[in-house]
């Protein structure tokens, strides 16, 4: 088992290098660099000064040399500094000699995105699980049909549109919830408890919006998993033993139907740190999606590469965890891994 784990982790290194190489070259396929952004299309900014900037950022060197420089820095786990954001460190905070801290872009954005996505994943599971079970048990009846229609509406509805409507309804018409941002103006003057409540109120809409689109996937997955299981022999046996319907469904059927969900959750780990550009822009939240999108528009190469690298590392780790969890949950797989 341990050697399996070590092998898997070691395999990740060449994989990551390969991913980063491909990403780096694809990134450079798009024309333009940081000196071709809107702010620089200003007659006061001369071509010589822009050429000078290009040299300072090594953008005048061949792509393969730039990749080499990047890889060299990365081998010390140095993600570099952003071109566009006043040399802010890409990943972690940096302290200068006077003790001033320059905040890391990813270090700052990641917790917010993670918080929103974890809350919404929790919400999705707590809603989608019972919906899926009901759908399966009442297959092709009214309840099943209405649930399926409901989750598909949630899936298909343009989230920015729903978000704006809800913002108008809960924020402008009724003043129940704040409209955008994560904290109220004057947040720092509130007592601790009210700060938490203030933050929860700000999170309510973004979490709800990001959950409603994700309901369909998991609820249909659970429904199909349950349907597969419900007609197995051991369910018939359980019923024949005279167990109550609840015990049969929740004790026997659901447990087996949930196995594939582990893989699904493992695969959703990169999504957890991904963030959504549209939702983050609308709700004015500086999360991973927004900083990645801005970095692409600004051709801010260190930030793009930083996010891609961390994203792919987490994806690989997510796969690994999913496999391990699967082995833990399913004895058949466990035996396969051991041998």
């Amino acid at each position, binding site marked *: 088992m341990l050697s399996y784990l070590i092998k898997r982790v070691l395999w990740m290194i060449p994989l990551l290098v390969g991913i980063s190489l491909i990403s780096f070259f694809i990134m450079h396929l798009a024309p333009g660099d940081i000196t*071709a952004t809107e702010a620089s299309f200003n007659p006061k900014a001369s071509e010589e000064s822009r050429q000078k900037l290009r040299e300072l950022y090594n953008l005048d060197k061949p792509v393969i040399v730039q990749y080499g420089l990047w890889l060299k820095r990365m081998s010390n786990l140095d993600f570099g500094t952003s071109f566009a954001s006043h040399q802010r460190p890409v990943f972690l905070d940096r302290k*200068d000699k006077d003790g001033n801290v320059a905040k890391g872009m990813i270090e700052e954005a990641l917790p917010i995105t993670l918080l929103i996505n974890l809350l919404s994943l929790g919400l999705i599971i707590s809603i989608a699980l019972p919906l899926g079970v009901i759908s399966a048990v009442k297959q092709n009846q009214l309840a099943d049909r209405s649930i399926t229609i409901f989750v598909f509406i949630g899936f298909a509805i343009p989230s920015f549109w729903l978000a*704006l409507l809800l913002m*108008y309804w809960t924020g*402008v018409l009724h003043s129940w919830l*704040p409209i955008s941002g994560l904290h109220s103006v004057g947040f720092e003057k509130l007592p601790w408890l009210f700060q938490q409540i203030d933050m929860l109120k700000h999170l309510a809409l973004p979490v709800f919006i990001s959950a409603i689109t994700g309901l369909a996937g998991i609820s249909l997955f659970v429904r199909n998993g349950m349907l597969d299981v419900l007609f197995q022999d051991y369910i018939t046996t359980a019923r024949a033993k005279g167990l109550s319907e609840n015990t049969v469904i929740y004790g026997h059927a659901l447990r087996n139907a949930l196995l594939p969900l582990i893989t699904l959750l493992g695969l959703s780990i990169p999504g957890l740190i991904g963030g959504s550009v549209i939702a983050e822009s*609308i709700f004015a939240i500086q999360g991973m999606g927004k900083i990645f999108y801005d970095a692409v528009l600004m051709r801010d190469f260190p930030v793009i590469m930083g996010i891609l690298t961390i994203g792919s590392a987490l994806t690989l780790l997510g796969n690994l965890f999913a496999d391990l969890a699967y082995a833990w949950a399913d004895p058949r797989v466990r035996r396969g891994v051991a041998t």
Partner: protein
Amino acid sequence: MLKIKSKYLTTFKFASKKWSKLFVVTLALSACGQATNDVTTNYEQTYPTQKGGTLIDAMIGEPSGLIAMTAGEAAASAIASNIFNSLLKYDKNLELTGELAESWKISNDQKTITFTLKPNLKWADNKPLTSADVLFTWKLVTDEKTHTPYGSDYKLVTSAEAPDTRTFRVTYSQAYAPALESWAGLQILPQHLLKDQDINTTAFARHPVGSNYYQLDKWQDGERISLVRNPNATQGQANIDHLVSRFIPDKASQFLELLADNIDVMGLNPIQYARIIPARQDITNKIALYKELGNSYTYLGFNLKHQPFNDIKVRQAINYAIDKQELIDGVLLGLGEPVAAPYKPGTRWVNPELKPYPYDPNKAKALLREAGFVDTNGDGVLERNGKPFTFEILTNQNKEREMSAVLIQRRLKEVGIDVKIRVIEWASFISRFIKTGDFDAVVLGWSLSLDPDQYNIWHSSQQAPGQFNFIGYHNPKVDELLEQGRLELDPDKRMKIYHEFSKILLEDSPVVYLSAGYGLSAIHKRVKGIPNPAPPAGVSYNSYEWYIPEQLRRNEISQ
């Protein structure tokens, strides 16, 4: 002691109990917030000027730092201009006047400018602000190691000196008329705080100390920057105590925040200004609309190195064939003006004799015929030497430019020109097409500059890749005028030169001026003291005089 003035509880009931527990928990928590003002508040009556209060505005991006020379974005300069001063500034009629400088003198040979600073200037941290700081800032902006695209104007200075604490003198190798204006664009930084720092990475960019009306109070990353009145301000004391800029990237969300009374100022698009707000009495009761001359114009520019745009008749024909009023009405909902020169309407640089090309399709057809274009095969598209007149208009992802291109396409079809449109993301647009000269025509914008010098855009020497005369305009007479204009410091003589320049430019028609849109903004009626109608410099030129009467202030969480 902590006191919360307004507090109310909200509960949220959700229809289905079974699976909505989490949802209800997140939503139904009680909270304290800011109540909206009573709808019956009378915003119309007059209130005496009062100090205090908070003004909240919204911007679409967060600045990367507050040192304008290294940051570069619009968001950074907007906030930095409240914190820092320059030697000079533009007054409400867009004439240069002193800011930190009390006066300035130009030597007889026009090569030396001597600035005298106002007496007893101070930084927000109480240290004296002297000409040594100005000299230090000049050294920074011209330093090879400084990451700034804006150094070129200042590198023309051959020697700079600060002989005493109030005198700053710069000498140029030859007279350079835009020099004066350049000193309105350089924000002076404190030497005592930046002396041993690397300007590109210094923490000062996020903890600035300046000399203008406001100083930084708190920078909440990703959310807002709060400024507080600077007691040592060099220009006097502003009325409003706190300025808060919230970063809300989405314009629709900004608009909802405005409706919910959470922000006081935002820029509007023409639809919000002309259609949405006027239709809603509940909004017009509390929000006032302002319009001012915009800062840029939109144009259709030709690649003059490509056939047939090297032919002046073809360019003039296209100019006659485009209905500018239609563009203003259709794209800007009437909220713009046609221009006939690349200068801000109402300023002295605009030649009053010049009129935009009228919409005249018959004249356009006649000119095209003279240029040799005839529809020989009857397909509705003109040909010359067997080749149909067809070209592509490129533009970047900008709704107003895309719509303009579509209207142009239709009008040109009527005179027999087949136009295709291609919309490209900005960085690709610049690198792949503009720099390489690989385009027929573009719809883009230039700023309506305050200094009349436009050497970088129109002089024939500025055509190298990455330079701004990318359309390849070359007219020896214009070159001469542009060179003369740079050497002439007398405003009246200068004006004549640029009037002549705009006249030739209009006749040559290397670009078709489409429109100059207005800057549109909405400001909450609780804010008083705003000039209406706006002077040429715009509504915010006197924002230090704005005030918010106590009765109209937001219920704030206060200590």
